């Protein structure tokens, strides 16, 4: 009996043990493989993601509205713009937006795509495009934060770089030039098709132009801190194979599509639409539209710029749809005809503070006959708002344009660098291209040759080098209105237009982050815990403080 029992038990246990352990390694590994995900993906798909994220990430572009547009004094009055940037309010969460958005998505994927297409002849073109685009994305980062992880960024998995070093901005720029040059050379028209490109639809010749043109931009960026290097790179890029953007047809513009308007959770992962345009429409549009800053509006208005009422309009929004600009009532003609005082917001002012003077609108009186709910006395409606043309989800995302190239060449000529052309010529070409840019890309009314020549006659480039530099960069500032990253960078780099602190407009008592206009954004505070050594090192180069008043390396003006 006893042996019997033992046999039974042994048998049972053996069966069980076999059953349990029979799960082979391959079975276990297979079980630990996610059947709903892929082990590999075409690097082109990662290029698409990175390109679209640039202006398509609703969380990221919030930073532009909160700080960039306010510091560059182009928008003012909307709660977000005034509260954060306009009143120098330090908000760690708002300042971290680009850092925490681009590194874990665009830069990670670009780096991964590059690593998987390196030394693969059948992917050499997409490899080149990925490299060029990574430089562009990293330039956005360094121009906001200064020293930042670049050479070791996005390598957490590939190289186990858990504590990436903050490269100095000087190193970063040096690396940009090298990387752009090499990537451009590697591009080959008979090579693979760059199928994931929503900028140039994979046109290799244009990618070469883009790489060379970005070198012009970066060379100019460092022209005051490293003039020799700047000159050399600039001239080298000009003569590089493939050339630079030669017309508006070469403009590097990310193509976005029309997506349903929403600010729900879903829309934060949907990169298909131009999120910046959507955000400037306002997530609570009836109460939070984008108002123009007096600095920007008056510059255009006072110079008789034909773009003034193409960019700025006066609207009554009481009947506007919450998902589009439908039923917005345009009062611009009335305001102009009646000579109503315009009330663009000074730096630091909210749309409601100070409360503007207004007027009685005939247009609305007419509407009130059939719709008694509308108001007829206009108040905040006399504050210029951003025109509907700039509030569409399918607005393009600007990387670099022919207009900018001309301004870069103009300034290079001014510096006496080896460019073939005159300062005034490049300047005029730049202005003309900037004006065309609005019609070509935003559906604004075309600016006629007459309008242009009147403007250019009345707004010459000036006589002194200082005047010329001011004219070029003020025009660049207007051009860069839809490219807030470049707009703020170029204002800081060139020092033009000269901007006054909101303190000088009577808002000193609200400037909790100091009276000086900030010149960078602070690193995310958690970096002091998550990447302590590298962070402390970077801070020590800035005087130990993660301050937004410490100028970047290239910012010596």
């Amino acid at each position: 009996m006893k042996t019997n029992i033992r046999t039974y038990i042994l048998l049972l246990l053996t069966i069980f043990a076999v059953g349990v352990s029979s799960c082979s390694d391959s079975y276990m590994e297979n079980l630990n493989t996610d059947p709903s995900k892929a082990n590999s993906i075409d690097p082109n798909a990662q290029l698409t993601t990175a390109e679209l994220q640039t202006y398509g990430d609703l969380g990221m572009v919030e930073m532009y509205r909160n700080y960039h547009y306010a510091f560059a004094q182009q928008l003012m009055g909307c709660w977000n713009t005034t509260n954060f940037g306009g009143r120098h309010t330090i908000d760690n969460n708002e300042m971290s937006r680009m850092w925490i958005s681009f590194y874990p998505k665009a830069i990670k994927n670009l780096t991964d795509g590059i690593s998987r297409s390196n030394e693969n002849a059948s992917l050499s073109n997409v490899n080149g495009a990925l490299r060029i685009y990574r430089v562009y994305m990293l330039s956005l980062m360094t121009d906001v934060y200064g020293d930042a992880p670049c050479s070791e960024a996005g390598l957490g998995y590939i190289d186990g770089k858990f504590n990436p070093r903050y490269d100095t901005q000087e190193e970063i720029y040096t690396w940009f030039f090298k990387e752009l040059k090499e990537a451009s050379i590697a591009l080959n028209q008979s090579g693979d098709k760059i199928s994931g490109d929503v900028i140039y639809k994979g046109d290799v010749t244009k990618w070469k132009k883009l790489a060379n043109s970005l070198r012009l931009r970066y060379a100019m960026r460092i022209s005051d801190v490293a003039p020799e290097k700047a000159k050399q790179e600039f001239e080298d890029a000009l003569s590089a194979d493939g050339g630079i953007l030669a017309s508006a047809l070469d403009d590097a513009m990310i193509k976005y599509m029309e997506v349903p308007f929403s600010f729900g959770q879903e829309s934060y992962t949907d990169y298909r639409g131009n999120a910046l345009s959507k955000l400037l429409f306002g997530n609570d549009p009836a109460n939070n539209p984008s108002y123009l800053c007096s600095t920007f509006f008056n510059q255009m208005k006072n110079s008789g710029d034909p773009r003034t009422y193409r960019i700025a309009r006066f609207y009554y929004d009481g009947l506007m749809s919450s998902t589009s600009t439908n039923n917005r009532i345009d009062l611009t003609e009335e305001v102009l005809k009646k000579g109503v005082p315009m009330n663009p917001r000074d730096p630091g002012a909210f749309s409601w503070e100070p409360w503007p003077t207004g007027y009685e609108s005939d247009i609305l009186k007419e509407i009130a006959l059939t719709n008694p709910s509308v108001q007829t006395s206009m108040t905040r409606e006399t504050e210029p708002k951003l025109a509907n043309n700039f509030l569409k989800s399918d607005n393009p995302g600007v990387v670099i344009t022919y207009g900018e190239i001309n301004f870069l060449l103009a300034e290079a000529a001014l510096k006496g660098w080896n460019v073939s052309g005159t300062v005034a010529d490049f300047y005029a070409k730049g202005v003309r291209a900037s004006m065309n840019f609005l019609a070509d890309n935003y559906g604004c009314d075309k600016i006629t040759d007459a309008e242009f020549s009147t403007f250019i006659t009345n707004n010459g480039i000036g006589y002194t080098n200082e005047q010329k530099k001011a004219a070029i960069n003020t025009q660049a500032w207007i051009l860069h209105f839809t490219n807030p990253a470049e707009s703020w960078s170029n204002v800081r780099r060139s020092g033009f237009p000269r901007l006054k602190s909101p303190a000088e407009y009577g808002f000193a008592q609200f400037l909790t982050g100091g009276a000086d206009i900030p010149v960078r954004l602070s690193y995310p505070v958690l970096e002091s815990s998550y990447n302590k050594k590298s962070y402390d090192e970077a801070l020590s180069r800035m005087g130990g403080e993660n301050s937004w008043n410490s100028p970047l390396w290239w910012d010596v003006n």
Partner: protein
Amino acid sequence: MKEKVISRTVLCGAMLLGIATMAIPAVAFAQHTTTQNTVSQIKVAGTVKDEEGPVIGASVLEKGSSNGTITDVNGRFTLNVKAGGTLVINYVGCKSAEVKVLSESISVTLKQDSRALNEVVVTALGIKRDRKALGYGLEEVKGGVFEKAKETNVINSLAGRVAGLVVSQTAGGASGSTRVILRGSTEMTGNNQPLYVIDGVPLDNSNFGSAGTSGGYDLGDGISSINPDDIESMSVLKGPAASALYGSRASHGVILITTKKARNERYSVEYNGTLTVDNQLSKWNNIQQVYGMGSNGSYSIDAVSNTNKSWGPKADGGNMLRYFDGTEHPYLIIPDNMSGFFRTGLTANNTVTVSSNTGNTGLRFTLSDVRNKDIVPKSSLSRDIFNLRANTTLKKVDFDFSVNYTHEDVQNRPALGDSKSNIGKNLMTLANTYNQAWLRTYQNENGEYSNWNGMDPYNVNPYWDVYKNSNESKKDLFRLHASAVWNIGSHLKIKGTSGAELNWFNFQDFKAPTTPGYEAGYLQNNQFQNKMYNFELIATYNNRWKDIDVTGTVGGNLYKIDKQTSIITAQDMQIRDVVALMSFNETSLQENTYRKQINSVFGAVNLGWRNLVYLDATIRGDKSSTLPVNNNTYVYPSVSGSFVFSELVKHNDVLPYGKIRMSWAQVGSDTDPYKLGLVYSKSKFTYPGYTIGYIDNEVIPNKDLKPTKTNSFEVGFETKFLKQRIGLDFTYYNQISRNQIMGMASTWATGYPYRLINAGEIQNQGIEVTLNTRPVQVGDFSWDLNFNFSKNNNKVRKLTDNMDMFELEKASWLDVQVAAKVGENFGSIIGPDFKRNTDGNILIDPATGLPTYDKSNHVLGNASWDWTGGINTTFKYKNIGLTALFDVKVGADLYSMSQRAAYESGKSMATLDGREAWYKSEEERQAAGITKGSALWNPTGGFVSPGVIDNGDGTYRPNDIKINPETYWMSVSRNAPAMFIYDNSYVKCREITLSYQFPKKWFGKFIQDMSFSLVARNPFIVWKSIPNIDPDSNYNNTTGMGLEYGSLPSRKSYGFNLYVKF
């Protein structure tokens, strides 16, 4: 192949179950033919004594009948009984005695009840053991305590009952989930929830969806589908030594639930019903009642802006304001405004149990129906649980089967946290002159959202959210269990258990077009399909040689889980009159899976010597599919022992029971699946002609992962004395987890916000004390008073190189985190603070008159409890019983974003300071014709921020700059979270039950037992220090500590319970 085996086993179990079910009635009828003899009655007179003398109030009952009496003051009784019958005598604290009636005079001496000394408890693997043999702490809660004052989620009833067990709920209400933490958090990034084991089969308690940082819904948990009436007992295994045999999943403790089998009666039907009325427990009633809607002391120009600010002029009723819908209302304070939104809830919980037992076969069927109408309008829950259990013995084999089917339907779960639809959040800041009822006109004639506040997406009209938007969840859950015990001889048995859980869960969330934030409309359909299988085989050998008692156990376990989720999201609603996917222009699909398997073998040896010394050792080896194949097997042991020193002093009435115990254990643990390598996916959104593809991982994968190991050490002391009227249990434990697998935060610059590593060291060290007393016992009256106390020190000792903290949860827009910080207790509240001088005074900026802030990270508080406890008391007099349960929690901090909002919106009492003077000063300035902000004007009154101004020469002067109090509070509420960190301590009454047991002689034969109770759950908060909100409030149900925002009022319920047995 494996799947085949599984399905076959399940099928066999189900078939056997069917056979058993059919067999029972036949047996029942067969036995129904016994006849009764008529026997003559005799009158018996007797006395009942115990060791000390006559016993008053002992019950004397004729066995097998309801004929009985009780003893008088001299311990005497008389009773007419059948000759040859048996009397059963019961008295509290004594062993029940049975006496055969042989003469008319009987004397009985009761023996002291030593049952408590030989208390049998359910331990790991469902093995019943003598409590004194255990070398670790274990607390058992009898099912009876859950049956009267019912919770919709039974686990909530544990609050305050067990030392070291902390229960927290979200404000999600009846349908929400519950978070249970035993002895603190042992894992920094895991969920730290205990494993629930029901009759030997682990339960899948995963949340389908949690309200995270950005809000969302609490979609409930698995444990809520357990019917309280089915619970025989719950054993709480707190330390790893107790739970070591359950392996990985038990590293946060185990709650073993033993369900009821058929009663030991031929046939019985029971009904148990509870009906309660639910109302708000906490109210927003600590707010200023002076100033109304507006800003800067003036009305809103259009009553559409500043709707959520009470910074206006005094609400004297002198004015009428015109609101968004054209109606006009006087400008008056609305007292208790928020309460008007909520309704009276109702919860009905009805259970019918049919049980039959014939010889070797028992059958028990329960049907439980729960209906809840929440205090939030339109929000309701219905849940039906069918449970069938059959057990039978065929020769040497005992079979036990159960099938459980739960159907749950929840309408309109309230949104939580930062969610734009959180009605609590949106109501609490509404200006105190703005009657919430005016928002009932939430839509215009086209059915579109009425613009009541300038389309502010962060303050959506709560009526719109409740009446226009909707969400619904449906759950169908099957839980199958089959076990067979083969008793081979008297020393050996083999037990096989198989369990399966199949869960279909569907959640649909709809946002009507024009909802701020979802302007184009939105519909999301989440489908979850979870399957879990568990197989176990155990052989147990038990024998005794002289003084030595030996038990040996070996076994194996196979556990497999397979979850599939698909999420369909639809946007841009074009057809507005039907809520269906086809009404939307764009739909997208996302799929996720979660699969894992753990194979285990384990063994245990239990030795006992002379009932004096016990020694246990266990070992378990797991092989988990989630770990790298070369590192996926891990083995871990436990050793425990106890010394029952009271055995040395025989018949000592002073100390009848005393024991010391000690244990050491290690528990290994794995991780979630798919963490070892990169995977790619594409966006669910379609961009024609292109693929938006990317790396799917948010956590850096780790090919070299090793299993986590947690070591714990525990000593304890148990005693019972004063005739067992006092029982004391004391435990000290020290538990350290090192190199645990965790998703450690990582700098974004790596490309990943997290990385999976073996790192860190977290310690839980503490004591637990349970004290059970019976202070009074006189005649029929007894008073029990039980206390439990637990102090846990949950220290973060190490993270990884160069890292001193990482974020667990955040309130990102306020820059506040709850974090694990080295050297601090787990759950540090971290954020910016004031800039201070060396004396600690706040530095005031002379330009603004506002405090200055240091935006780097500071520890502002800690969210761990210093200690927790419970008091449970019962009074009994004859058939009347009164019990009350109190829950005490002390010492945790809470960053209350709700309170912060009360200050920012000018509703808090403290915001009255300086208002009148400032508004007067402003009038004077205007009268003087000086523009705002001009340096020419010196305010004559206002608020002076507490703090000092730097003179620039190392000295400081007290701040004297008068500013607008609104400016001050707006500034600090945005920048100084320390101002809104509250001591979250509280004493809550969890339960009161007053019950009456109807005397048996009142009923005929038809009714056997009946009781009626008045019940209350969470009737009142005895003490709290945070105003307006319930201190149990949470931001979400994930980490659930340290943060709170927009909490809905918690609920209190009063009602009655009726129990009838036929």
